């Protein structure tokens, strides 16, 4: 088990390294960043000064080496657009992102799992159909569009929730719901299929013939087994969520990493873009490790591989 975790950790580092190369490469395609930063009419001297300030005068491999060396010390350079150290901005934004993604995950998991359990337990019926359609609907509408509908309904018409911004619990509700709804369908699907699979297994049959109550069979035995793939999906989805949140953060003016990255890309603020994506990949690797550990808790077969 320990060996397994350490191994995963090393693989994770390799993954992060590949990501860093990819991102670094991607950000250096395209026109000279100095031209985009400089004010109209800047002369060569000004451009050169800008390149100096952001370390753009070195050859690319050098730039990469410097980038990695500094990144290890959590120094991502200075934001071209915001004029602040990227690490500082990142730290400011991370809590908002984690809060949003955390709340959305809870909503998605809560709704998705309960809908999935219902769907797997009774294959037909109004509630099941309703839940299934509800989750499909979340998957079928672009989430920025859901977000706008929420604003229309809850802020403009019903006047019960604040529209945009960040700070209170009430500000979190709409962004978290519009993000969570989109992802709940995936959980419904996977809970349903894995639960069905588990419910058809021999050991669940044994639980039944042992005379356990339906609640004990489904709630204790089946769910614990069926949640294993759900956990995997949840781990993978965290990163997808941070990234899918871009449009939602934009709509609600939620100051998360998604919005930071979006503006970074739009303003060609490469240091920010690199840092955000690298940060998320590290987060992903970390999440995967966490999922592995959780796995071992859920599935004892892994503990002694």
């Amino acid at each position, binding site marked *: 088990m320990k060996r397994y975790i350490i191994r995963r950790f090393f693989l994770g580092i390799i993954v992060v390294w*590949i990501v860093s190369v990819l991102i670094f490469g991607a950000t250096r395609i395209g026109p000279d960043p100095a031209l985009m930063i400089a004010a109209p009419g800047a002369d060569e001297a000004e451009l050169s000064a800008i390149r100096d300030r952001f370390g753009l005068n070195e050859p690319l491999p050098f730039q990469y080496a410097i980038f990695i060396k500094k990144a290890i010390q959590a120094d991502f350079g200075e934001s071209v657009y915001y004029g602040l150290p990227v690490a500082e901005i990142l730290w400011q934004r991370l809590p908002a992102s984690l809060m949003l993604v955390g709340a959305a995950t809870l909503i998605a998991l809560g709704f998705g799992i309960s809908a999935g359990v219902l769907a797997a337990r009774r294959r037909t019926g109004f509630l099941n159909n309703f839940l299934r359609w509800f989750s499909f609907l979340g998957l*079928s509408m672009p989430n*920025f569009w859901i977000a706008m509908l929420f*604003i229309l309904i809850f802020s403009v018409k019903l006047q019960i929730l604040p529209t945009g911004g960040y700070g209170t619990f009430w500000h979190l509700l709409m962004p978290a719901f519009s993000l969570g709804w989109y992802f709940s369908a995936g959980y419904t699907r996977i809970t349903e299929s894995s639960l069905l699979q588990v419910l058809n297994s021999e050991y669940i049959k044994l639980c039944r013939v042992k005379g356990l109550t339906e609640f004990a069979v489904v709630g204790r035995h089946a769910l614990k087994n069926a949640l294993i793939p759900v956990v995997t999906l949840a781990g993978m989805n965290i990163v997808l969520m941070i990234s899918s949140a*871009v449009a939602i953060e934009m709509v609600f003016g939620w100051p998360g990493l998604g919005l930071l*990255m979006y503006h970074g890309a739009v303003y060609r603020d490469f240091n920010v873009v690199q840092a955000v*994506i690298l940060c998320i990949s590290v987060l992903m690797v970390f999440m995967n490790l966490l999922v592995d550990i959780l796995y071992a808790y859920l599935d004892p077969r892994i503990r002694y591989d």
Partner: protein
Amino acid sequence: MRGEFWNELKDIWRRVPKIAVIILLLLIVTALSADFLALHDPEIGDPRQRLLPPAWEETGKWSYPLGTDTMGRDVLSRLIYGSRVSLIVAFAAVIIAGCIGTFLGLLAGFFGGWVDQVIMRFTDAWLSIPTVMFGVLMAVILGPGVWNIVIILGGTFWSRYARVVRGETLSMKTRDFVQLAKIAGCGKARIIWKHILPNVFSSVITLSSLQIGIVIVVEASLTFLGVGVPPPKPAWGLMLSEGRGGLLAGYWWLVIFPGVAIAMLVTSFNVIGDWLRRYLDPFYRNIE
């Protein structure tokens, strides 16, 4: 033989989610015959006919059945042509992603060893890169354009295919029929092409029908962020994005129609994908 084929087709028809299939077929037909169906040029509007409501509203005109947008373009014509853009983008992106992912997944799963390690680490890296964000970045770098979007979406969505296909290939590799093909002396290429690919294909199709919905939504999101399909192309995502203010402003037809169109298309794909997943999975077939 022919009769059998028809019977089989009928049998399948009996089981498919009919509404979803009908909607999808209708949309495809619409996309193909957009040139005949559309009443107006979808890209050039008449500035004098701006923001007309749908025809059944008081101030609407029947020559613009679903109203016009801020630039005086016919919403219906844009919707009709938009089905073409949306479907092309979605299909092309999914085909590109499917091809790349299936190819890499087959290689990784079949050859194992360091080939597998290299491909899968690369895939992991790709999976841990936030898709939409990377899409935004690439879109910004490559600049707006329909085919750029296709390339970006295709280039970011392949990783799931690689994962799935690799897993399937690994399990196929140990199957008896593959072993028997090796015993018969089949070359690697033949085994991959004749024995493994056709068998992983059903998962690829299932995954595609689910991915296509995601691709459409992501495309709309990128467009909303201003880095997707560029104006004046009549794409649904773009219509939604351009007209989104209309929702609060009372010009609901700018948003509701493309929104419903996207939701219908994506739901159809999702329903069909869900059905395929069940239908092609022998486990589900047994319990249905």
